[in-house]
Each structure stands twice: as C-alpha cells, then as structure tokens.
C-alpha cells in the first residue's frame, strides 16, 4: 500500500473482501453498496446484488440517495416485488450475505434500527424495513457502523434485527434460522462473535488503531489480546477503483 486511504475506504475494502464470487447479497445504500461493487470489480465478478425494493443486479452510473432512488435501478437484470426479493429469494435461503446498519448493536449482535430510549421516553427513528428479515434469513451478516460507546452497547433498547439474541443457542431456541456468522465492521476494528457463548469478540484492529481506542469507544466489555490481528490494508488497485470508478463523487468514501 503506497497511497493514503480514509477509514471509510478501509471499511469498504474490508467488507468487500468478505464477499465471495457467486455470493448473492442484499445491500442498502452507502458503504454496503460500495463494498459490493468493489468486490464485483475485483475478485467477485459473479456477485448478485439484490435491493429489497425489487431490483436485482442493476448497473448504476450515479449514486443515489436511497434504494428508492431510480439512479440505483439503471440497467437492471430483473424487476420484482418486495415479496419477490425478501419473500422468495431471501426467505428461500438464497442470500449469502446481508448487509445491515443500525442505531445500536449489542454484545450478541442484535440490532436496533427502530428507536432509542431517552430520559423522557423513547424516540422513534426509522423502523425495520427489510433489516429484520435479512438478519433472520441471510447466511452471513455484515454490520457496518460507526464505532461509538452509545452505539455498541450491552443490550439494545429494541431488537429490530435478531443477532445471537441472548447468546449460546437462544437464537435457535427462539426458532430463528441459524446463520453462519455475524461480523461488525466499524471505523476502528472488526468484531466477530465467540463460537460458543456468541458474545462480541475482536477479530482485527484497523491499522494504527490501539486496543485502548476500541475499549474507550465500546459500551460493552470486550477482551483485546496483545496479539490481536490487524485488518488488512487496501491495495492500490482497490483504492483506485473506489475513487475513480465506484464512488468518483466521494458520496460515501
């Protein structure tokens, strides 16, 4: 790596490398989309990208402001309905990777994208959309979020999307289909979940990030060993593609 890169670029690259050729992914706008397009332009040309609104494998030439933005639908392979994407493709188990974001994530990987509790009550934000369903049915879950003490918490205020629920095998016991893994990519590190207890654990620290940075910004107790792995750095090619082909207007990177 010879050029400088931004944290968003690193996050996009990290997510991109977790995608495999032939994967079917459900994405939303922003870094998930950027990561998917980068994977498609590099090691995963056969990636299938699904937008829950009913669009499969478009070739957008402009970034949009959300999945309801027609910019995202250009040159698509297939138009279908919400039931067609989430009720058929996803629910049948054909989605390998689901990207999610959220207001809060807890130590079991449960996600809240609905409301936050305040002293005076609660404040409703956006609601689930397809997020709960993606968390339920996708085989691998990638959460992309800003690292913040108030966002990475012991227990989310509201479970919009089920992660490992209360750890151990509580997810299975609740009747929720099993997933292969959940990973959280923040601006400081990558988290995974402990094999047995299903609680948050560090997978890798981003280059230049100290264990202390993570501990201070995480609202959950997490153990970071001295020999914690380092997140791989972007290659020149990845950065070139991000800046020149995928997000030239730098809307998300």
């Amino acid at each position: 790596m010879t050029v400088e890169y931004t944290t968003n670029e690193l996050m996009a690259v990290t997510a991109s490398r977790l995608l495999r050729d032939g994967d079917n992914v459900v994405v939303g706008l922003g870094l998930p989309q950027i990561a998917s397009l980068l994977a498609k332009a590099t090691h995963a040309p056969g990636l299938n990208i699904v937008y829950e609104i009913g669009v499969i494998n478009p070739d957008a030439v402009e970034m949009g402001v959300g999945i309801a933005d027609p910019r995202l639908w250009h040159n698509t392979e297939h138009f279908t309905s919400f039931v067609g994407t989430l009720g058929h493709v996803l629910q049948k188990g054909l989605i390998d990777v689901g990207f999610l974001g959220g207001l809060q994530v807890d130590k079991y990987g449960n996600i809240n994208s609905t409301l936050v509790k305040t002293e005076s009550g609660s404040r409703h934000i956006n609601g689930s959309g397809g997020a709960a369903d993606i968390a339920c049915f996708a085989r691998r879950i990638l959460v992309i979020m800003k690292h913040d003490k108030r966002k990475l918490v012991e227990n989310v205020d509201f479970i919009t999307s089920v992660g490992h629920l209360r750890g151990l095998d509580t997810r299975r016991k609740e009747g929720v289909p099993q997933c292969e893994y959940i990973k959280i990519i923040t601006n400081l590190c990558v988290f995974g979940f402990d094999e047995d207890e299903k609680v948050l654990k560090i997978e890798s620290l981003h280059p230049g990030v100290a264990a202390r940075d993570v501990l201070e910004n995480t609202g959950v107790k997490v153990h970071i060993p001295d020999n914690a792995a380092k997140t791989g750095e972007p290659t020149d090619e990845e950065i070139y593609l991000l800046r020149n082909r995928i997000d030239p207007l730098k809307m998300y990177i």
Partner: protein
Amino acid sequence: MKSKVMELSQAVGEIPESNAHLALGGFAIARNPIAFVNEIIRQGKKELNVYQTVAGMDTDLLVGAGAVKKLAYSGGSLDRFGRLERINEAIDQGRLDIREYSGLSISLRFLAGSMGIPFIPTKSLLGTDMLRDLIRKNDDSIKIETSPFDGEKYVYLKSLQPDFAVIHAQYADEKGNVIIEGPLWDVEMAKSAKKLYVTVEKIVSTEFVKRNPEKVAIPSMYTHAVIEVPYGAFPTAVYKAYDYDKDFLANYAKTNKNAGEYKKFLEEYVFGTRNHNEFLEKAGGLARLNGIKADPVFGYKA
C-alpha cells in the same frame, strides 16, 4: 364496457369520512400517491387505519394532518433527505396506535390477502421486539404456532385485505390494467385490497397494454378505479417519467421536524390548493416540473 375512469375528488369521495382501512403504495421517495393523499386531507377524512410496507412522504403527510388513528407498517424514511418525523413524533407522543412489522411480514400479510388464503406461516419476526410489541398489544394478526409438518416454531400472519388501496403508477387503461415501470414493491399490496385505486401519469389504450403485456403488473380485475393525475407522485419519483424533486423533499424534511412548520406547509400546499394542478403550480409549476423530467435512457433526470 364499463370504464373504471374516475375523477380524483370523486374517488376520494368514496372513502368513508371516518375509520376507513387504507393501504398506501409509496416507498420512501418513489411513486408515493401524493395527489390522492392530499385530496384525502382536503376532504377531511379522519381516524384512518393505514397499512404500508415501507412508508414515505405519503403517510407522513396523512399522519401529520391528524388523519390517521392506526398505522401498521415496517418503518420508512425520506431516504437521505430525512425522516418521517410526523410519524415518529406521533409515535413518541402516543398519539398513534402503531403496529410495527418487518418489511417482509407485512408484505406477506398483503400476499395472503391477494391470494384469498387465511394466513401465511413464516420465520420472519421471531425474536424481534416488533413481535413482542404486537403480542403485548394483543394484535390479532399474529399467532405463534408450531408447524404440523416440521414441528418448528413459526409466526402465522393473518391475511390482510384493506378496504382501499392506493398506488401511483405510470400507466393504466380504462379497464384497469396497470403498467408499472421499475421495481414492483407495491403489487401484492395493491392486489390485496377490496377496492384498488390507481392514480396514473397517463391513461393509455388497451392496444398499448396489449403491446406490453409483460409490463402489466396488475391485471384489470383487481382494479376498482383509474384516475389520471399527471405528476400525481410529485415530489417523489416516477421511474421513466420524472425524478424526485430534491429541493422540495429537502425542504419537506426540514418542515416535518416541527409541528408548527408542518402546519404552515399543510395550510399553504394542501388546504391552500383546491386540486393537484394547483398544488403543482404552488410548487413552481411547469418550470419546476420541466426541471425533473426523466431522461429516456436512465429513467431519472440524468
């Protein structure tokens, strides 16, 4: 042959003054039936029960106007422009009987309704606080059951057939064959209703329909009324017709954060206009609309 063509005011007039069950077809900033919703507000309908997969400006307007008693949906937004703050505030203040689903689970309720079956079993919603809240509210759309086939736990979602559904589409013929360009998120919802109202950019001939049978998303038997309202989704986007109006939306997203500002917006744009053409004039008229015309290749303002 009986034509299903109606005037907007006449169509909205068919909805009872109070307590109607109404499904809306907008999704964030795309194909919101804005003209229809504004007319509902003008005609002073009250105590609506609204159903929607992913809400947009349409339902935010209705809730803000105090027309909605109960809302069943999976959330929504104005995409990056902002949030549905009239809805959010009504929820926070306990003024709305809110029933939250995941996007799939409420869509499956529409699907069951469109198929005339009593319910659909799914894993969707299991473990979520949406499910806990629905159960806590004794919502009658939900049962947790064990499938007699695999012995697994499922949510049985009750079929939903709202009295009225409203969508905005590009084209329909007088018989009610509806052509939709782009994604079809609202099709099961549209087909689930007892009476489907479709506002369209243009009423077309059945000959045009027959030249494009693959684009007919809803065959005529589902459709109760076809209403021609050009720019009927403004300021939201209609693929291949016009783009969303980003300034109008950005302004609305500022306005809807504050009850007072929203009220002024409503007075000026909805109560201050007698119909959708006047609403469009107020918004800037032809000059503004020409500025968002869709490029024929891209389907948005390229």
